[in-house]
């Protein structure tokens, strides 16, 4: 039998139910993988092995008693943006030093109610602001992937870089992640994993550290489309504690996986063909089009004319909302406090020392665009453009069922390679941001390798609350791509 941490989540679930192995055994296999591999990858900032084993024993009892939940005994990693009761939660920011929630986020509660086991808290960009996981207070996450013939460390993408690295390196069966501008889909694409950002309102934001409230949405990051379907089915729920949570039934996502694409209309938006885009991305896209066509889908060229404005509009809306959300970190109620001569200086000292440079940049931009005299020119303008971006999608979805695009403009880059220029880093999210701006669901599915041997992903975008379409079409792409190589294990110390 292969190592237990190599199993897919779906196979692990089946093996646990047939008692081929116990929850304790599969949890221990992951704890061992974290112990030997995490130092090199820095994916977990707080492993919780004792808690994991304790929960696994309860899961084993439930499995024996025939009271197993949908995720009974499944070991997962949790992005440090999710508040976990009595387990430190910092959003990977210095300003939340030592913060230990007295409550549990709705999403993680759903997971624990379903029997899942928490392996620990995963690294991410500070307050989820970044596309490379280089802004974390706990240091950069390293991707398990390397370029052919090179030992140079690569980024796993961000902000859910710890989630992506851990899932890809078999340090968990699946992980929670969040996506404000691409933070699930972009790291999934760069690490050869599957990441879905559901429709805005599908998963509760209650207890998830807020970045930009009109854009933030949580979702799973897994190794297969099937695993993502299982995990999202548990994470999603209507939650009265989140007033933007939408009260619609959560479908059985596993039931649609074998639906195929015969007769479906797949839109190819021409605006996603960016100037200067590497040839290998175009090739991957054409490959994806070919796969869907040969499986019986009808390919239709479409236009989303405001695509190029999504990213600049995002960099007004997201920082504006962030500046408001992050006003709560004042050194009074939780986290870091740096004293000053009076309370104003205490606020200023605390926030100056507590926030990293990317967070400060965004809070300042946000403060500026919301300030008197500039609100109309920047914020309202961006929200008007956002209306147009959403309208583009609405018009296109009158003609097609789903859109196929590249997930990222290129493969994983090296640490430090893009951290000199903020805008160059922001451009990583050029294909993912439009779905956030429109509240639409999007999935990234591994589809091939770059010329350097590192993963590339394709993105699917569907109508609001039609995640089923993403799983259905995503499965066809996954099957067509076949078994892609896994990263060679260089990270485990033996």
């Amino acid at each position, binding site marked *: 039998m292969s190592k237990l941490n190599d199993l897919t989540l779906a196979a692990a679930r089946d093996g646990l139910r047939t008692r081929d192995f116990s929850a304790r055994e599969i949890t221990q296999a992951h704890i061992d993988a974290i112990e030997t591999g995490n130092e090199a990858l820095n994916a977990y900032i707080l492993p919780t092995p004792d808690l994991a084993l304790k929960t696994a024993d309860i899961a084993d009892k439930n499995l024996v008693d025939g009271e197993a939940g949908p995720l009974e005994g499944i070991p997962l990693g949790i992005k440090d943006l999710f508040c976990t009761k009595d387990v430190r939660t910092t959003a990977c920011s210095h300003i939340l030093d030592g913060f230990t929630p007295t409550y549990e986020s709705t999403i993680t509660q759903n997971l624990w109610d379903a029997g899942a086991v928490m392996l620990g808290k995963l690294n991410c960009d500070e307050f989820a602001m970044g596309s490379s996981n280089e802004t974390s207070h706990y240091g950069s996450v390293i991707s398990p992937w390397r370029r052919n013939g090179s030992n140079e460390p690569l980024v796993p993408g961000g902000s859910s870089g710890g989630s992506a690295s851990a899932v890809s390196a078999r340090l968990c069966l699946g992980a929670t992640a969040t996506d404000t501008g691409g933070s699930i889909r972009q790291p999934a694409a760069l690490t050869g994993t599957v990441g879905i950002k559901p429709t805005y309102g599908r998963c509760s934001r209650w207890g998830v550290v807020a970045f930009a409230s009109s854009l933030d949405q949580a979702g799973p990051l897994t190794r297969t489309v099937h695993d993502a379907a299982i995990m999202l089915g548990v994470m999603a729920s209507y939650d009265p504690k989140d007033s933007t949570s939408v009260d619609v039934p959560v479908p059985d996502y596993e039931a649609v996986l074998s639906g195929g694409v015969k007769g479906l209309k797949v839109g190819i938006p021409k605006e996603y063909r960016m100037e200067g885009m590497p040839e290998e991305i175009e090739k991957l896209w054409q490959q994806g089009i070919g796969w869907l066509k040969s499986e019986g889908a009808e390919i239709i060229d479409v236009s989303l004319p405001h695509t190029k*404005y999504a990213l600049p509009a995002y960099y007004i809306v997201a920082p504006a909302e962030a500046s408001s959300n992050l006003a709560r970190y004042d050194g009074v109620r*939780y986290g870091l406090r740096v004293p000053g001569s009076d309370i104003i200086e205490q606020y200023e000292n605390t926030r100056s020392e507590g926030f990293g440079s990317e967070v400060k940049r965004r*809070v300042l931009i946000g403060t500026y665009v919301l300030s008197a005299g500039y609100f109309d020119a920047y914020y309202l303008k961006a929200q008007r453009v956002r209306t147009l971006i959403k309208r583009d999608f609405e018009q296109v979805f009158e003609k097609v069922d789903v859109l196929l695009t590249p997930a990222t403009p290129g493969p994983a880059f090296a640490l430090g390679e893009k951290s000199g220029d903020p805008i160059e880093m922001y451009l990583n999210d050029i294909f993912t941001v439009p779905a956030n701006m429109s509240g639409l669901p999007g999935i990234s599915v591994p589809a091939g390798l770059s010329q350097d041997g590192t993963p590339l992903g394709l993105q699917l975008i569907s109508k*609001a609350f039609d995640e089923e379409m993403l799983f259905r079409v995503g499965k066809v792409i996954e099957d067509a791509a076949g078994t892609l190589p896994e990263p060679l294990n260089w990270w485990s110390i033996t």
Partner: protein
Amino acid sequence: MKVDESTVRNIARLARIKVDDTQARTLEGELNGILQWVEQLNEVDTEGVEPMTCVTDMRAKMRKDEVTDGGYPEDIVKNAPEHTGTFFVVPKVVE
């Protein structure tokens, strides 16, 4: 629109973030870079377009006006850097 160093200082003051001279100069360049880049939005004709207020077509749910949570002040102050009983402690605000 272009921000100068004194505008940066003013924004930083509004955001309650202390910046020193070196940081203010670096931020001046970075913020201008970002602001110039987002100004491409001016190419878009938004005449008569409503600004987005909610991304999903949903109506906010009504609920009963009743207390459903609370009553645990010890939990609220548990993570405070400084507290006395169930009060947060801050430097003197009123003389």
